[in-house]
């Protein structure tokens, strides 16, 4: 905020502010917001949007927060520069939430005009204007949303051509809808032109900063990655916020993976009866040689514990996307969190440690969705991708993905008939080359030595049942070695300014956006230089411990209550444990840079006071 207010005093605030639209869910504001976002994006200005919605189908308050940032900051911005109020149930609160000096664009009928004298207030009869567009009762409610987009178009100088294009893209092949929306847009725009005198400083100016970029949600990117990563079986059970990953995958697969001639599918997407079955199907398919995945969220992860252990222990590839929401239990199903990390790392009873991938951007969702299959097949083990609601369901500006030629499909050590040759015996769990990964055969292999019997109970290298203590200990030791051995193949951490110093910051997943911005603030506003490491996978490797050792105090920033990544780093790197401090944010709303920077500054000040 401080920066913005500064520029405000000096005149215009260009391409750097937040808009928060308060509506009722089920009222159709989603497409209006998407159109608004895309129009700004197409003006070449980096933009991000966060949908704060209830666990409910219609009638409850919902907010959409758009952030425009010339510097490309995509984290939530604390403070509302421009508030749009349409929801009578939350109107007062929404109006009071606008930052001083900001803008309140409100439905006139709400009578909010007099509530604040420290903001620029514009009242517009959105509903009445919508009524003028159509007689249809249902549509009016929807179109009121386009009216506010129209008003904003005018107020913020959004390029009308881009709004136009965005509307057409939003309703492809629906000329009627396009027409109506254009009319509603125009109603808002011209009303604003005629009745509103702009007193506020916020403005958009075209740039070319989004060239070569796309606007995409993490779930969509993961779905694309899964398709281009050669996924053939996907089994799932609906649960917010992972549903849209699977539904998008289904859409893409139907379009691009159905043989246009035979209409036969090169994939199976199965809606299972629950998450136990979903992962069970993935395990069965992975065992049989398909690239198989599921996507779920917290409660589903809990239900997948037993099958995860089976896959770990019997060495079966499986890819799981955990699009995290706020737990425990049902928690807040439509709010974001990074609270499943410990659960996933140790998922299942007994000694287990899973490979986790930690995407922070849609680009990484796309990449990791592919790599997850490669890793799962190469190391014959579950790979869990830790996304979250903020990353998965919100739209982010991303570099255009390259066609994934550089990620070939690595099916791991699979022995086909010719590979078995004259072998009389094949031992499924024999570590032939010392890396802990044993070649496997796939059902359907007709070589007489190929078949073996898989089980979740103790077994010797020949896959025979064994209760011998030595067989068990060796097997478990090999599994540990295998996972440790996988670390160099996992996405390494991204390190910035990591040469060393008093303060380091560690982040992971979607927290990255705010953490990066916080570092800029600390440097620019407080002169505090920080090293930065973003974990992109677990178990962590050498780079990470060396980074920790190079910094006196390392702040581990994450969106959960208990500092789960910090806990894992303490387990893995005990010598560095005492350097770690948690910077946590966990209330379901995506973290913002200010609160991270603030916490770090407070710790640092405390350190000085208490001689820490």
């Amino acid at each position: 905020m401080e920066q913005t207010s500064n520029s405000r005093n000096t005149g215009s605030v260009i391409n750097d502010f937040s808009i928060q639209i308060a509506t009722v869910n089920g009222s159709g504001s989603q497409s209006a917001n998407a159109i608004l976002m895309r129009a700004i994006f197409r003006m070449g200005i980096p933009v991000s949007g966060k949908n704060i919605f209830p666990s409910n189908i219609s009638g409850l308050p919902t907010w959409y927060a758009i952030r425009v940032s010339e510097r490309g900051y995509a984290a939530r911005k604390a403070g509302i520069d421009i508030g749009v109020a349409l929801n009578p149930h939350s109107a007062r609160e929404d109006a009071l939430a606008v930052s001083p000096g900001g803008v309140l664009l409100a439905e006139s009928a709400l009578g909010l005009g007099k509530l604040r004298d420290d903001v620029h207030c514009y009242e517009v009869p959105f509903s009445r204007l919508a009524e003028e567009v159509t007689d249809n009762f249902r549509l009016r409610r929807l179109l009121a949303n386009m009216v506010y987009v129209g008003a904003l178009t005018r107020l913020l100088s959004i390029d009308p051509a881009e709004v136009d294009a965005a509307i057409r893209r939003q309703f492809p092949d629906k000329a009627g809808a396009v027409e109506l929306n254009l009319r509603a847009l125009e109603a808002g725009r011209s009303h604003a032109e005629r009745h509103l005198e702009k007193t506020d400083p916020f403005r958009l100016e075209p740039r070319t900063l989004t060239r070569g970029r796309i606007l995409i949600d993490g779930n969509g990117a993961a779905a694309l990655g899964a398709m281009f990563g050669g996924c053939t079986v996907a089994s799932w059970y609906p649960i917010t916020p992972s549903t849209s990953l699977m539904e998008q995958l289904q859409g893409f697969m139907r379009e691009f993976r159905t043989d246009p001639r035979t209409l036969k599918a090169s994939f199976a997407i199965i809606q299972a009866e629950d998450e136990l079955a979903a992962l069970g199907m993935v395990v069965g398919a992975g065992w049989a040689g398909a690239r198989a995945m599921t996507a779920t969220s917290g409660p589903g992860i809990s239900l997948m514990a037993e099958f995860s252990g089976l896959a770990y222990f019997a060495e079966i590839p499986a890819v799981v996307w955990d699009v995290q929401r706020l737990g425990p239990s049902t928690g807040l199903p439509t709010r974001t969190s990074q609270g499943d990390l410990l659960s996933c790392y140790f998922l299942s009873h007994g000694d287990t440690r899973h490979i986790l991938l930690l995407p922070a951007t849609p680009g990484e969702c796309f990449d990791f969705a592919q790599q997850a299959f490669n890793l799962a097949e190469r190391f014959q083990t579950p790979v869990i991708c830790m996304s979250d609601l903020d990353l998965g369901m919100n739209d982010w500006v991303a570099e255009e993905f390259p066609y994934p030629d550089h990620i070939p499909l690595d099916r791991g050590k699979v022995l086909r008939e010719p590979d078995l040759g004259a072998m009389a015996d094949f031992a499924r769990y024999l570590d032939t080359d010392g890396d802990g990964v044993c070649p496997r055969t796939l059902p359907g292999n007709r070589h007489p030595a190929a078949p073996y019997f898989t089980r979740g109970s103790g077994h010797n290298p020949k896959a025979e049942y064994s209760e011998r203590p030595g067989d068990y200990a060796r097997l478990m030791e090999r599994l540990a070695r295998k996972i440790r051995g996988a670390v160099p193949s996992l996405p390494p951490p991204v390190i910035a300014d990591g040469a060393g110093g008093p303060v380091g910051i560690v982040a992971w997943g979607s927290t990255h956006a705010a953490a990066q911005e916080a570092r800029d603030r600390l440097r620019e506003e407080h002169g505090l230089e920080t090293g930065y490491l973003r974990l992109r996978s677990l178990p962590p490797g050498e780079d990470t411990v060396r980074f920790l050792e190079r910094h006196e105090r390392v702040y581990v920033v994450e969106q959960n209550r208990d500092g789960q990544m910090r806990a894992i780093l303490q387990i893995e790197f005990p010598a560095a444990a005492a350097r770690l401090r948690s910077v946590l944010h966990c209330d379901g709303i995506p973290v913002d840079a200010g609160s991270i920077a603030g916490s770090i500054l407070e710790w640092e000040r405390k350190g000085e006071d208490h001689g820490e």
Partner: protein
Amino acid sequence: MASDKPRPGAPNRAGLTIEAYKGRPSTLCNGCGHDAISNQLVRAFYEYGIDPAEVVKFSGIGCSSKTPAYFLGRSFGFNTIHGRMPSVATGALVANRRLKGLAVSGDGDTASIGIGQFVHAMRRNIPLIYILENNGVYGLTKGQFSATADRGSRLKGGGANELPPVDCCALAIELGCGYVARSFAGDPKQLSALLKGAIGHRGTAFIDVLSPCVTFNNHEGSTKSYPYLKGAEEWLHDVGFIPYFEQIAVDYADGTTREIALHDGSRLTLGKLEREYDPTDRLGALAKLRASSEGGTFLTGLFYIHGGKPDFTELLDLDDEPLSALPPERVRPSRGAFERILARLR
């Protein structure tokens, strides 16, 4: 009845002797019903001449679920977790539609912990022979009642079961399964014919095989003991099997026998008893089942058959090639497709 059996010791149509269909030595209790079923599975697959490389075995957890280690040693197999085998089988059979699925489960594994996955597997009609080795108790955990225990049946220790049993055949029929039968581990001839019928069926074939647990549920007072079952068994009909490769004509002069054609051209013959019984009548089958269970007898035979239903791989419109074997160029769309998608996101 026609003999579909290769001469003992001789190779079958797949060129294999019966040895090729055996597994490792059983570690079950001497006399366990499950071993009798394993023996029939060995014989049925051998006599049918199925290539073991085309079969995949699945099981859950329990004494019964151990048995896939004891038959078809040349087939891949997966001893999964307790009560959740059907999902694993579903995944594997979708991944490779060329495989013939053969599942073994126990009554605890299927009717207690596993009834949810059982119900959904039946709905999906996955291409799977599903053998329930039903002894009314949890053998491996030492003899507690399972959900198929009959009301009033007594534990070795003395307690009586007070809850009604789950009749998995009735559920399977209710849920649309296209091949539903019941047999008895102590009745090898009938079991053999029903197993072969299951091999010839397309889609899910469910056989509930009463299989006494000699260690924990073979005592006086048990309704799943050998003596009790031998006394109570009532044949719905005399089941015979004629494989597709032995298409001899049989003369059922007296009109007492009914023939059922299977998917692969084999035939089941249902003779002598209850010749009025129509195993393609779902409602009649349910009525018959209930009447027998209320009458306290233990009815065996082929209760219901319906061969025309598409199996799950067909519903999914799967490629003929197994999904597990598709080459990279079949599973990664082209650069052009990629470009089209990106264009929408700009």
